């Protein structure tokens, strides 16, 4: 599997060298970016901490870095770490009381949902600074024929962003794999199912949950920074609030949150679905603005009922079953 993975990464890295058009390259970049964000979500989601509030971390990441740049001239190199710190503080604010008072399952999901909406509402309410629901654009550093500015982290060449985001996606997978092999993962698996028993063998439940929550929130806020710097336009709906939070849950669950590449498959699937829906239902979208959300919601329910392990999870299981019983296979 190892050499196959390297070949896959090399093939992916070679994509921009093929003279691929800007639009397909943009789609691939968005796929990788969402794959990274969904992976970040799954790091805690698969351990029983289902957050409907990751839009908050994405939004804090995106808005902190853009606001600091636009209003104070802070380079994203400084803004990004501050954005991560701020999102960690938000995660702590929500996580600590939830974990200490054993708010789990549906209740935890509801608390995080509130965090996500509060973040969106704060961004909208501070419209004098954030541009409100109209969104915000980072002041451009690309005037007078400059095609890139390292200080402002702005690059007009999509190929640069492709490699940057590819690197973060790989880093996200590495963190996943690292965590997967750790005792922390076993401990959280134990906590998910038998919290009292886990505490009774000396596992610090609050600390373990906080740890993955902080990792996941921090990673997600970096996703927000990348989104803002790549798109050079953010608005409250696309980086925070219920819509984007649900999209993360949907992507991760549809792809399969229990396998490393599941959220990535989910990102591809979500993107194809989005583009497909846009083509198929273009006019209907104008009449029913929330139609896409309704479709996501319905599909999420269907996935949870019929394919709880997601596309990749189900596919791997199917292959394992086929291998286990080769003699019984027909033909």
């Amino acid at each position, binding site marked *: 599997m190892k050499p196959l993975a390297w070949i896959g990464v090399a093939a992916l890295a070679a994509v921009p060298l093929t003279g691929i058009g800007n639009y397909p390259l943009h789609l691939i970049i968005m796929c990788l970016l969402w794959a990274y964000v969904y992976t970040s979500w799954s790091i805690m989601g698969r351990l029983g901490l289902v957050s409907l509030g990751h839009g908050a971390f994405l939004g804090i990441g995106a808005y902190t870095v853009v606001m600091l740049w636009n209003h104070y001239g802070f380079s994203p190199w400084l803004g990004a770490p501050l954005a991560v710190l701020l999102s960690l503080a938000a995660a702590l604010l929500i996580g600590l009381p939830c974990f200490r008072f054993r708010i789990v399952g549906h209740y935890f999901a509801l608390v995080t949902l509130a965090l996500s909406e509060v973040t969106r509402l704060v961004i909208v309410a501070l419209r004098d600074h954030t541009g409100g629901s109209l969104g915000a654009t980072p002041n451009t550093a690309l005037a007078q024929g400059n095609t890139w500015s390292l200080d402002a982290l702005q690059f007009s060449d999509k190929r640069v962003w492709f490699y940057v985001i590819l690197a973060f996606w790989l880093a996200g997978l590495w963190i996943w794999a690292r965590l997967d092999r750790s005792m922390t993962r076993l401990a959280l698996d*134990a906590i998910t199912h038998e919290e009292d028993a886990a505490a009774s063998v000396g*596992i610090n439940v609050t600390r373990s949950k906080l740890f993955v929550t902080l990792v996941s929130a921090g990673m997600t806020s970096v996703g927000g920074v990348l989104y803002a710097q790549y798109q050079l336009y953010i608005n409250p709906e696309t980086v925070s609030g219920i819509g984007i939070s649900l999209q993360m849950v949907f992507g991760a669950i549809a792809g399969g949150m229990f396998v490393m590449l599941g959220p990535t498959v989910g990102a591809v699937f979500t993107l194809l679905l989005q583009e497909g829906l846009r083509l198929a239902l273009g006019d209907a979208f104008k009449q029913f603005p929330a139609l896409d959300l309704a479709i996501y919601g319905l599909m999420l329910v269907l996935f949870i009922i019929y394919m709880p392990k997601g596309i990749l999870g189900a596919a791997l299981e199917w292959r394992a079953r086929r291998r286990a019983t080769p003699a019984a296979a027909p033909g």
Partner: protein
Amino acid sequence: MLEVSGLTKRFGGFAAVSNVSFRLAEGEILGLIGPNGSGKSTTFNVVAGLYAPTSGSVRFLGEEIGALPPAAVCHRGIARTFQIPRPFRRLSLLENVALAAFYGRGEHPPRAKAWEMAKDALALVKLPTHPAARVDGLGAAGLKKLELARALATQPKVLLADESLGGLDEQEMEQAADMLAMIRRERGVSVVWVEHIMGALMRVVDRCIVLDHGEVIAAGKPQDVARDPRVIEVYLGTDASAVQAVTDARVA
């Protein structure tokens, strides 16, 4: 080494435990028995850190531990089992026990060491140490053994065993009692053993305390306790034959 004094635990207006005191000596197996609702499980859960006492104290090796949460109690060297086994079903047997070995003392041993400790604990209770062995195949007795292995992997000084005989048949009960005696012998742990039936327990414990309605009604050597009129009264009709059998066995 473990000293409970004047322990009272109220839930609202109901005193589940009132003014219970006992002392566990090093290397001792102490039986804590009583019918359902007598307060033994509450006492047990206060010592294990699940509930904070309303009043009274729990001291372990001279340190007050009454207010500590379960994980901290475990780190001090007091491990517990659960009456209804609570295995981590998604994990293998070895992983179940390795977690206890890794986290049990607060300071983490190297991982390889934790896996070795886990294998030792599984072998001690005669469960498979193979990495692929799962929880699913275990019966009632196997799950009880897993509870013991997991508790032992935390390297405790005191083992709190919660109804290790519950749900077992006669033969399994005798084996479970022997196993606790063997664990004390092999690991040098002291044991507080909570049980609502006397049966096989009386053969193994050094001393026993009988609770009823949250109060201690008798304490002493098992054969003396079994002859105590108040204990017989409490158990009469429910477990009188067992009391009689144990009394006979001890006298003989």
